[in-house]
């Protein structure tokens, strides 16, 4: 589903050349639940952005859902974002002028999934059934985060990218969200979750660890996949 080959990303800030990605190879199949670990600034978000066609690599090849992103046209990239990937942002990126329900509705509509499910049900599944008509500024950080997740889930796209989806959440809610995301992998989606919480990575099928723009390890979590109930953080 996702294929990165020798992907690099450089930023020029004045005379300084910042290397965000120093050449990474990554393959993720449908049904996989992958956690990306790494210190701050190691290139996690950059990787996700490139997979989500929000950003282009400086070099390398990116294939998502069978489509080569480096050679795709603008409108193909738009279509990819609409139909193939769904993003959960580190900074939630909700529309401040829309209520929780409307934000979800909008996500469904853009991906052409309107009518496939009730936005209210999806919000209910992330524990927000009682905040449907609230605007983002009336919600807590964690609640906003969950609206963002609901919006991504509502699209039903085969690739789910989540950037620190549990950063704002307490253990209980965080666990529920992760469970939800893990379930998505069971429904034949490729799920990529970025975190710097090592504990979370234990529930993944696979853990990809990044450091200074490189993948330093890739494989099942230490001690094997652990059920959610045994995690503690």
């Amino acid at each position, binding site marked *: 589903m996702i294929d990165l080959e020798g992907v690099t990303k450089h930023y020029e800030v004045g005379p300084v050349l910042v290397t965000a990605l120093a050449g990474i190879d990554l393959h993720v199949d449908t049904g996989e639940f992958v956690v990306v670990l790494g210190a701050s600034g190691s290139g996690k978000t950059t990787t996700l952005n490139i997979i989500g066609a929000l950003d282009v690599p400086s070099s390398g090849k990116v294939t998502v859902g069978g489509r080569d992103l480096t050679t795709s046209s603008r409108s193909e990239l738009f279509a*990819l974002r609409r139909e193939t990937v769904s993003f959960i942002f580190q900074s939630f*990126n909700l529309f401040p002028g829309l209520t929780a329900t409307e934000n979800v509705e909008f996500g469904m509509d*853009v*991906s052409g999934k309107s009518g496939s499910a009730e936005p209210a049900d999806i919000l209910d599944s992330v524990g927000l059934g009682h905040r449907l008509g609230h605007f*983002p500024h009336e919600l807590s950080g964690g609640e906003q985060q969950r609206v963002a997740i609901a919006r991504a889930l509502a699209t039903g796209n085969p690739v789910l990218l989540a950037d620190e989806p549990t950063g704002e959440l307490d253990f209980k809610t965080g666990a529920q969200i992760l469970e939800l995301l893990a379930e998505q992998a069971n429904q034949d989606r490729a799920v990529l979750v970025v975190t710097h919480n090592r504990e979370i990575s234990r529930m993944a099928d696979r853990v990809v660890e990044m450091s200074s723009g490189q993948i330093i390890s890739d494989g099942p979590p230490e001690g094997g996949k652990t059920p959610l109930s045994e995690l503690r953080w």
Partner: protein
Amino acid sequence: MWLFRLRWSLRDARKRWIQIVAIGFTLAIGIGLYAGLSSVTQWRLASIDKSLEATSMYDLRATVGEGGDVPAGSLARIASEIDGIDRYNERLLFDTQVETVVEGEELLVHGRIVGMDLSGGEPVVNDVYLIDDAARPVSHSATPQVLVNRGFSTFWDLPASGELTVGGDVGVDYVGSAVSPEFFLIIEGNGSLGRSNLAVLFAPLDAAQDISGRSGVVNDLVLTLEPGADAAAVSQQLIEAAASTDGVLLDVLTREATPSYIGLTGSPEIDQGIYNAISLLLFAGAAFAALNFSARMVEAQRREIGNSMAIGEHPRTIVVRPLLIGLQIGIIGMILGVAVGYAIAFQTVSVVQEVVWLPIFEQSFQAGIYAQAMALGFAVPVLAVLWPVLRAVRVRPVDAIRSSHLASRGGSLGPIISRIPLPGRSLERMPFRNLMRAPRRTFLTLLTFTMSLAIMFAMLGLGSTFTATLDDGNEELLGGEPDRFTVQLDSFYPVNSPQVQDVLTHPTVQLGEPAMVLGADVTAAASDDTADPIRLDLAVRFVDFGSTVWTPTATEGSLSPRSPGIVLADKAARDLGVGVGDDVTVTHPALVDGAFTYSTRTVGVAAIHPHPLRLNAYMDLSQASTWGFGGLANIVTGVPADGSSLNDVKRALFGSGTGVTLVQGLSETFQSLEDSLEQSSSVFVITRIFVIFLVMLIAFNTANINVDERSRDHATMFAYGIPVRRVIANLSVEGLLLGVVAVVLGGLFGYALLLWMALFLMPTAVPDVGMIVSVRWWEMAASFVVALAAIALAPMFPGRKLKKMFIPGQLRVME
């Protein structure tokens, strides 16, 4: 989905309705000014034709030459025998002086009695239109009854009826006001007679004959032609018939050659040129402001646009929401534009009708003009929105969702400027930082302020330029004697003739000097070979260049008595393209063996004089003999003797019966122009009000948008305990920094604009006048201070919004 978006957009609109309305109003000023003023022109053009028709203005007017007259009925008889004449009326016209008392002050002006059929029976050619259903003057009344021309009675605010004295001692009753097509607009005596100082009185024919003491005679015939009749042939027949039957020479004038008709029908289009320029300027300013603000409103949504892109929304649909805002602005602009247009139109009409009153004035809705203006006003905000949205969807989504100020930085200048170290604490540096953070945005806002201030400067400057032009002109002619006057004689008289000597030696006159004035046709000598050289009709005055009483001022070159050079007005020299030392070709009347002919000679330009009227040219009195007029005079200039007033002189000389046709203060040289400038300047007054309004709106919008754009910054500042007034003060300082630069730039561009308007635009309207550009700096400074104050105070309004801000909510939205 469309409903969804519409709802979303309406929710946006509710949050920003003040801005949307304010931007819409900005546009409306531009739209309204153009549509309103252009409508007035259409109304005038249509109404002039209708009014002329309603009062049956003459097609031809035949006047008995050289002050002569013929028995009543003889001109009518001639007319009745000529084919092609439809209707005709005989009249008796003569000039006189009219005296009355206005608010305790005696008013003595030049007058014209028009004796005609006022019975109201058969419709007559060149009929009067009675104002407010005035009574008709009664024939054969013990005291003659007349109607006063409306222009005069309203200028002086005369009561509806009253008494006047004509010709020095004849008392007449005026029973009301009226207009007649010849005098809708009054331009006479080379522009020295306007509605304020030419009192036209319409009298029954017999009353006019009584007043003039010429019973049973007429001297004028007005007629209309049958459709298809040849005006030239008819006039030729009239002239021939009058010469053979009554032995008199008729001067025949067509309607189209009548100066007041030319002025009347030409002025709407001339005014339209000025209207166009002004409304274009203001529209450009308003459109630019609207463009800037709409763009900034969209810019503030960049992150949202980025979000939409990130979740894959198609650019086509991303555009919809901002576009809806553009549409809302456009619609509000259109609606308010019509309101503003009508307000301006009615205001303008009231002034136009005050100066040139037309009996029929139609004010039909000018759908075409409004459609044009509204289409433009609609396109501006829509384009203004499209442009930044299309730009926003071009950037990579990853940049769009990054925090907004990074994304809107734009250009390579921003990062460089923002690294310049500044003194002071961080809070004090904030306004500078904010300006430098987004140089493009700052530049656009600056440009918007500069444009509107420049227009304001030019409008104010034009007002003072008019005043200065009139004042300087008077100063040049009066030479320190406010009552200097000129006496026009009815013919050329030897200087030692009783006609001239009576004036010179009259006890009410001192410092009298005989002079000659002749019309001449002047072209640049060097332009002989070009196909169509510029040809000016000038009035050449022969005055004694050695005089100690008065000589023209030479701003270039010098006056030397007895030398043959000509002194041209600065404007005339510029129009002809000549300077001191160049030659001009002068075609002038010459007196050879007692007979008039025309002769052409080449004359050097000796000097340039500063009088703004292009018409006035001077030569030394000694040169009159080379034109065959040696020792003759047709005017006398002088000042009232000690103990005498200008009115005393007018009364004494006009009544003396020795060939005096007009006694006039030289300060009245511009009278008709002054009277009609009132009209143009009223437009400038309206515009000025709207420009000031525009500046305020722009200040308001800028502050409002600043507050919206930075709500998160402000929330963060409040969270750190910075008081609201401090934030407002910072916004004011930011506005003032821009404002001060805008004032400097606006002053410079405004001056350039003023020069263009005064030296290029106005001459198309009044080619005879060389505008003297003048700026009243205190007035300018005062209005700039007002503008700056508006800019500095503007953040107070959104300040309320700041006070009410729900800080946690603002901080919470991570968008």
